[in-house]
């Protein structure tokens, strides 16, 4: 039997400064992050900030978040500790990074460039990169005992690990330079085929996208030129923080085969990257309240009542119970498969709730369920 995940021990541990919640979409990652942060503040007296990416509106409201403003705001109604919450503003975070690495005139030039505008709001991976950037910033202030981060709902749950490197690679712009350099074909080097190909490519790109686009691109690249080193350095720094013992990763998943497949993939990947996986939080787990009655017995009894033509409420209840019992069997099976394949990963389970969480009491319930 794999070990039970003790989230309280992690939240209480003063050497843990960062908690990252990751996992597939739709499993309650944001809610879990908020519940962990609230518990750390209330029960363990830690000065905590939770960085959310895209919370449900009512959950955001319960944390007192009304807009993207990139500033941690104190959550009202927290008993016995202090909790701050913020929503990530991707564009503003990117702007701040630019400002931090270049002089104001250069920054204005960059902000005005259409490529920057497109990239800072749409480049795939920008949100992930900026979430990690924000984490780095929060960590650097040394203002918080504990930072809890929710990760963006990505195409792949791993995007936030890869995005910094991808963005740095992009900004490193070897290809950009190749594209923008005047084509110097010919010559007798072994690279002549490649050179010819790239000259042709440049010509084709010029034709397709037009000279105006290349001028903008060129402006963008030269304006960012001074910042390449800075971007890379920051990405590497954040990566090191994530590998440090002060960080704990929680993989959040629901007991469904798709979600657990992604969780398994993620657990492996964290291991490969030498990032500290604290455990799996299995969310939205169903439980029967009347375990003495099996699904089959329940359905058979419902059929008997249908025959009698009476007791529709009981028959309906028996069918609800049967469906729940069947679902529990399925969930237990996929969870057992995960445990067997990952015997060293500690697991905590949280029961499915009848309604969605949108107040601090709801978050407290989840926190309590998580830890015992």
């Amino acid at each position: 039997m794999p070990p039970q995940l003790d989230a309280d021990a992690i939240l209480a541990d003063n050497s843990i400064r960062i908690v990252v919640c990751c996992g597939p979409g739709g499993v309650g990652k944001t809610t879990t992050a908020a519940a962990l942060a609230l518990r750390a503040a209330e029960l363990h007296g830690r000065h905590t900030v939770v960085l959310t990416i895209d919370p449900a509106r009512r959950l955001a409201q319960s944390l007192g978040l009304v807009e993207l403003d990139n500033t941690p705001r104190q959550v009202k109604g927290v008993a016995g500790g202090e909790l701050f919450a913020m929503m990530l503003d991707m564009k503003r975070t990117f702007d701040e990074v630019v400002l931090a690495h270049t002089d104001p005139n250069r920054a204005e030039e960059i902000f005005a460039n259409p490529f920057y505008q497109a990239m800072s709001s749409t480049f795939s991976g920008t949100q992930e990169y900026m979430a990690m950037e924000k984490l780095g910033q929060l960590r650097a202030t040394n203002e918080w005992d504990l930072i809890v981060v929710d990760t963006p709902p990505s195409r792949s749950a791993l995007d936030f690990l890869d995005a910094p490197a991808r963005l740095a690679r992009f900004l490193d712009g070897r290809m950009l330079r190749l594209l923008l350099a005047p084509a110097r074909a010919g010559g007798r080097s072994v690279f002549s085929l490649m050179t010819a190909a790239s000259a042709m490519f440049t010509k084709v790109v010029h034709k397709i996208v037009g000279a105006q686009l290349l001028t903008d691109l060129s402006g963008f690249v030269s304006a960012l030129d001074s910042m390449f080193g800075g971007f890379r350095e920051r990405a590497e720094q954040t990566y090191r923080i994530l590998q440090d013992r002060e960080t704990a990763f929680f993989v959040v998943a629901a007991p469904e085969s798709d979600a657990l497949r992604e969780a398994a993939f993620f657990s492996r990947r964290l291991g490969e990257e030498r990032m500290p996986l604290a455990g799996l939080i299995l969310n939205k787990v169903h439980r029967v309240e009347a375990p003495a009655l099996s699904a089959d017995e329940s359905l058979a009894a419902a059929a008997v009542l249908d025959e009698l033509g009476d007791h529709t409420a009981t028959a309906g209840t028996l069918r609800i119970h049967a469906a729940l019992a069947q679902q529990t069997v399925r969930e237990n099976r996929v969870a057992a498969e995960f445990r067997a394949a990952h015997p060293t990963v500690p697991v905590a389970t949280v029961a499915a709730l009848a309604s969605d969480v949108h107040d601090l009491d709801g978050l407290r319930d989840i926190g309590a369920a998580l830890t015992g």
Partner: protein
Amino acid sequence: MWPARLHVVTGKGGTGKTTVAAALALALATGGQRTLLVEVEGRQGIAQLFDTMPLPYEELRIASAPGGGEVRALAVDAEEALMEYLDLFYKLGRAGKALRKLGAIDFATTVAPGMRDVLLTGKIKEATTRSFDGRRVYHAVVLDAPPTGRIGRFLNVTAETARLAKLGPIKTQSEGVAAILRSPMTSVHVVTLLEEMPVQETVDAVAELSALGIPIGNIVVNAARPALLAGTKVTRAELRRGLAAAGLPDDRALVAGLHSEAAAYLTRQELEESLRAELAELGRPLVELPLLSAGVDRTGLGTLAGVLLAGGGGPVPDTLA
């Protein structure tokens, strides 16, 4: 119910939009038609669903539909689409392969954020309008589209590229795509679950797409559970009598357990009802697909396709019986 030729299926991650897209492709192929099921995000979700090898950049038959129809599937890859495009217009030949080795193609599809989407949607437009011997090759094309959070940006290719490319073939191409996406030929369907976040994203996506002038089709409520206990009140006394009548022990623990399960179910149902009402306010047809207790396999897809053809919303098959 499904008059369009290009069906764009979006929804929040985890709502089952790939399943719905596949079931719709199957439904529209019923009766001897040919449909194309397309994915664009490199997830190989279609291959997983149909339990086949990863799809290449090629239109391959993936399923047959009742009445002699067939579904073909295609995983569009931005790089491949660019190569195809370049080959078509510029006859790159071997130079193209060298470029790929250099990473130039990868680069070109990343460098201009809109370019990627222009290529992907361009390929979809081509498949939708393709004809052979004066006849349409596909009766319908169903796109397993990016999720609600990215759908507006994905479909609104012109705005993005117009900012970047003011002249040239990219601009012409994106204008052609934009015209199709805003015509009655296209319909965007939003898949949701009866849960708070997916419904919120559905409402947001409908607002965003309406503002962009992109036609919205149906709202598909996936994994809907049968409404048991509708209008009945479950008391402990009734449960005791009912259990006794069915020949089961009416002991306290059992009665209490069943009672609290019924109460949780009714709480959930009440919430689902209010979410359903919120969706109804969008003024689009609601199509409900039943939760398949055995999970979604090939048989399950057939069931869902049948419900989609019937227009959904009818009596939910009793999957518990």
